[in-house]
């Protein structure tokens, strides 16, 4: 990271910044780097986050992959600003990188204090109050997002259950694997395909524990909007319920925080219309999707796009989704 260029960028957002401190890369997304830094000014310190595309074409998807559903960082910054204006808790965008900045593609945003690490959120005593409020807060944030007119956002991919199913089935076929449980899940998903929603709404696209930042009092920010799209609002709720995001709180279906009914009640209390059957559909589709994503990560390693050993470890997590699909579709009585 070129710190002279970085300081020049920071000065666009914080004109009286005199120096940078505490620059460190945070572990995180596969397609984006996240850097934490502080800008010193005569009147105090401004905590910031730089989110930028992984360099050198690194990332899970091959360059130019037509099935890459992620939006670019410029668009992500625009989405953040738009949903912040309607009351969704997200960090304030401070500057968007331009080619002349010489730092790649990305944006600078406020660093919101809090915790994203799931095991701490779900198990530490310090977050007991936050856990208690989590589903109410998530319900409110989701309803605020889903009630946002599509027109106020940048143009986003329009999705549907049929399109998502086709996309993830295609990705799975491309791997050429033989996993009977995935075939069973695909049959179920085709047979139970819900009707398209009458009015597709803005979606986060990756709303799950791990992408939610909490402070001691509750939800402080919804992060990682690179998969934002437009579609069935229940898709965000179903993905939140995928078992892989419960991190040891297995029976707390809603993100490890509580039962599904508590999430649906919170969503309704905030003015949304919840449909448990659709949420379940999206949970099954989401579980399959995560399984294919695990295989995608192994493939990124094999193809040389990302040689980090972590990708191979995640690749072996595909079998956890087979187990969770069996628990959903063929529970042992």
């Amino acid at each position: 990271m070129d710190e002279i260029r970085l300081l020049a960028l920071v000065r666009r957002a914080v004109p009286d910044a005199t120096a940078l401190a505490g620059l460190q890369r945070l572990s995180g997304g596969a397609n984006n780097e996240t850097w934490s830094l502080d800008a010193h000014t005569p009147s105090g310190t401004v905590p910031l986050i730089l989110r930028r595309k992984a360099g050198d074409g690194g990332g899970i998807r091959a360059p130019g992959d037509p099935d890459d559903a992620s939006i670019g960082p410029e668009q992500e910054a625009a989405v953040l600003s738009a949903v912040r204006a309607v009351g969704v808790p997200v960090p304030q965008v401070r500057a968007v990188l331009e080619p002349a900045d010489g730092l790649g593609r990305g944006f600078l945003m406020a660093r919101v204090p809090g915790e994203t690490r799931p095991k701490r959120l779900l198990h530490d005593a310090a977050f007991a109050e936050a856990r208690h409020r989590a589903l109410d807060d998530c319900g409110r944030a989701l309803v605020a997002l889903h009630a946002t007119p599509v027109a106020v956002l940048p143009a986003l991919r329009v999705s549907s259950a049929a399109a998502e199913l086709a996309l993830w089935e295609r990705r799975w076929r491309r791997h050429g694997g033989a996993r009977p449980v995935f075939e069973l899940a695909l049959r179920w998903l085709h047979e139970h395909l819900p009707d398209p929603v009458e009015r597709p709404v803005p979606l986060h696209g990756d709303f799950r524990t791990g992408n939610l930042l909490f402070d001691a009092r509750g939800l402080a920010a919804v992060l990682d909007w690179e998969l934002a799209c437009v579609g069935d609002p229940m898709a965000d709720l179903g993905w939140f319920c995928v078992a892989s995001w419960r991190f040891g709180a297995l029976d707390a279906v809603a993100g490890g925080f509580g039962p599904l009914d508590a999430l649906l009640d919170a969503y309704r209390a905030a003015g949304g219309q919840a449909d448990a059957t659709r949420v379940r559909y999206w949970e099954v589709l989401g579980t399959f999707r995560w399984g294919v994503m695990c295989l995608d990560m192994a493939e990124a390693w094999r193809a040389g796009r990302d040689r980090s050993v972590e990708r191979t470890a995640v690749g072996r997590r595909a079998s956890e989704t087979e187990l969770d699909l069996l628990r959903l579709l063929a529970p042992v009585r």
Partner: protein
Amino acid sequence: METTPGAAELIEAAIESIRTELLPALTGRAAFQARVVLTVLDTARREVLDAPAADAAELARLRGLLGADPGIGAVGVGAAASSSAASGSAASGSATSGSATSGSATSGSAASSSAASGAPGADAAAGTDAAPRLPELPTLRRALCDAIREGRIDLHTPGLAAHLWADVLARVAIDQPTYPSFVREAASATDRTRD
């Protein structure tokens, strides 16, 4: 007596060295990376030790399951015709195999000794002739996938759910034995075996 370290022992030595010699000297991102390396090596070690028995048990169950499927035809499910009794024992044996596999994940020495005792599929569930026939496994696994995809086999088919459960539990026992869904389901599978 053979004294050269085998693959599982080499991996075990690497794990021990990283854990006791390297990791204590590392901090920050390097320490995180080392822990990921340990995760990967643990999985590789469990695969070396436990996959042969899991494969053999899967093959035995697949022969039973697919023997009656007309779509398989030329695939040559060798013993399929005579396997209705065999498949019954394979199915019950596989439940035992599943719990034995998960047990070995926590009890390394027991697993090593069973692997050291020789043949993949020394486990009773595998059947004595399983090892030489394992090339069939990918073919039969693919045949099951096709049968499910085409709707010829579904959850109403006797034995399918039991096969998938036994198979997935054996695989996750290798891939990720601390995964909460696995811990829960492996425990209840053991309880059912005990009942």
